[in-house]
């Protein structure tokens, strides 16, 4: 393939900043979505497992609600604070990216 190293498309500087924030926004959005699903699935699973042995079927939905609560709390702590600029390291994956650009 032809090397594209060093070549720039028109309006590179401003567009790249826009593209960076778009990529970060996209990544953050799906991370938040993943947290919400993971919280419900993880604690719903734990609730179901305990309920299976204790024969208390209510533990499954309770676990899911607890998981959702944990996820929502964590998302607010991690991403909400980042938006106010109070927690610089709040954003997760890819936070330090771009240091060699």
């Amino acid at each position, binding site marked *: 393939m032809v090397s594209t190293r060093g070549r720039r498309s028109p309006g590179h500087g401003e567009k790249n900043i826009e593209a960076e924030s778009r990529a970060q926004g996209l*990544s953050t959005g799906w991370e938040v979505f993943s947290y919400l699903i993971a919280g419900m699935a*993880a604690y719903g699973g734990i609730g179901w497992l305990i309920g299976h042995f204790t024969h208390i079927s209510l533990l499954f939905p309770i676990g899911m609600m607890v998981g959702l609560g944990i996820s929502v709390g964590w998302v607010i702590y991690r991403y909400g604070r980042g938006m106010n600029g109070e927690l610089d390291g709040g954003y997760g994956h890819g936070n330090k*990216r771009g240091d060699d650009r």
Partner: protein
Amino acid sequence: MTGDVVAAGSDGCHLFSGCGFPAPGLQDFNFRPLFTIGSFHFTKPMLVTILCAIAVIAFFWAAFSKPKVVPGKLQSLGELGVLAVRDQILRPSMGRRGDKYLGFHVSLFFFIFLTNLMELIPVIQFPAMSRISFVVPMALTVYVTYLYLGFKNQGAWGYIANMWPRGVPWPIYIILIPVELLRFFFIQPFTLGIRLFANMFAGHLLLAIFMVATWYLASISIGLLFAVGSAAMVIFVFLLELLVDLLQAFIFTTLTATYIATSLEAQH
């Protein structure tokens, strides 16, 4: 399009002709095998996928096999595509060190985009990504790639340890362990694949519904008015799907770049 769409056309099934609306459904995603080898059935979506892969390889081969300093039309078009992926997807997520993964991302983007576009091409009219079996191998490829790169660059323990955010009280860590593990190892690759699948599935179904409805309502009756409305919806959904096809390829590739970026360096 298959099944009921063909049936509706060939049988002359219209409003007030005594037959019910042949609503498209899951049956439109199943195809009769083109040929069979033992228990292996070769179907239309497989053929479309292979043709798309060959088309992408052939295009970039033709564009870059004999590169010139002053590029020709094909090379210019190829460079435009490569630069678009590099500047809009790869570098915003990974910086310059992501350039060595440019080939992977360019292939991924154009393969998904072309495969998605097949839903809008007459005769073919089917996006292979609306079948989960075509999406899962791609999501798994990305998953294995970023896990491998993460273990290679940060070490197995380092990679897992680096997933955890800093500056959080230790009781919170214990609460978050199952959430983080599940999210990283299962939900993340799951959402990567399921989003592409669901969008293509829904888009194809929408197009099929309005196309069948247009044909079904087209009769010398009041139904003709609704047929015109349905035909307008076909055009609208067609244009919408054009955007969705591009957007889904873009999102899949951008998230892939982001996940690989996390494998190359620790998060804090």
